Structures are given as structure tokens and as C-alpha cells.
């Protein structure tokens, strides 16, 4: 069961902030494809400019395999301070 987290504008766009997907998709790209098949607009936003992906709270570049209990977070451009 993968846990998926959305932050910032992605959360508003999707209308959810957290969900679980059973069984976990095989990879980050498979997860993205699954989410895009349900919500095309969200699918496009997940590959939008500056969106980063954290797998189990570590930033990953490109694709990465998911283990059954992976936590995947999609992080739009950050703005602190």
C-alpha cells in the first residue's frame, strides 16, 4: 500500500492531500501514470516545472522503483520565509 502526498497548489488542484494506493505501483512513473489516468489535469501538473518527488522523505531524480509501503510526495516549487 503506497502512501501518496500532495503539497501546495497540487493539493488544491487534486482536491486531496493524501491517499493510499493498493497495491503500490511498481515505480514513481507508474504511480504518475495511474494518477494521470484518473485526473488528466493532475497528471500534467505532476510533471510541471519545478515539481520534485520525495520517496520515503528523500528527493529522487528521474524514476525510482517503489516498495510496497513507499511514501511518495510530490513537491511543487518551494516558498519559505
Amino acid at each position: 500500500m503506497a502512501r501518496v502526498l500532495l503539497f501546495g497548489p497540487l493539493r488544491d488542484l487534486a482536491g486531496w492531500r493524501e491517499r493510499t494506493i493498493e497495491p503500490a505501483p511498481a515505480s514513481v512513473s507508474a504511480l504518475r501514470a495511474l494518477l494521470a489516468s484518473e485526473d488528466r489535469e493532475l497528471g500534467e501538473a505532476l510533471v510541471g516545472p519545478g515539481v520534485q518527488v520525495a520517496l520515503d522523505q528523500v528527493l529522487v531524480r528521474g524514476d525510482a522503483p517503489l516498495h510496497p509501503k513507499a511514501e511518495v510526495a510530490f513537491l511543487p516549487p518551494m516558498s519559505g520565509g
Partner: protein
Amino acid sequence: MITLTEAPFDPGALLGGFCRERAETGAVATFTGLARAEGGQARVLELEAYPGFTEARIAEIAEMARTRFSLDDLMILHRVGRIAPGEPIVFVATAARHRRAAFEACDFLMDYLKSRAPFWKKEHGPDGARWIEPRDQDHADIARWETP
């Protein structure tokens, strides 16, 4: 020390505590960021973090500053949740032997907190809400530290 808090804080009290019991520190610099009212356009600022991940990323930024500027100590306190105009959002303090390192480390930490720390900021105003994207200036600010 790195802290995320939903509660308002008093920058003066933090500075007082930070300066206490230091024998070899010759310089303490601080920065306090406040939420702007934007002429009435911003009623409330909402700051979102990714618990655990946000603290870990800030700790990495802090470690970079500690090494680069040979700091004795540093403190970062950042608000999350809802923030009213005029309230402090962020407080950074740096302690070093001499002032230049303390000033520069403070500047460095704020540039990285602005666009590399996992926070997302939403401004609620009379015409609705909007997410605040990093500005070109924020990227230019950080580039100053990354060019060799």
C-alpha cells in the same frame, strides 16, 4: 536548533536567549521575517510544511552554513499554519567569532530557506486565495552562493 511552530513568537526573547552563556562568540546576527499586509490584499498567510522532511532539509541547509561560515551556533525558527499580517514568520540567528561570518551566514540561510526549504505559502485575501511561487529574485539570490 531548528524549530517549526504554529504559535506566534517574540523575536526579542529568542535573541536574548541565543546570546546567553557565550564566551568565545564575538558576533550574533539575526533576521526576522514578518508577514506583510500587502495593502489589505493579504488577510492571512497559510504556511504548509512536510513534517519530518522539512526539518531534515532545513538541518542540511543549517549544516552547510555551519561549515561554510565556521559558525559557533545557529538557530532557525519557522512558523507553519495560519499567520496574520504583522506577525513574525521566520527568525534566524547566527553566532560566530567575527561579524562578517555572522552576517553572511544569516543572509545565506535566508536565501536557502526562501526557495530550498520545503514550505508552501498561500495568501488569503479579500479576492480569494493564491499560492505564492518563488520569484526570479529568490533564484538570483541563491545563485550568489552557488557560483564559484
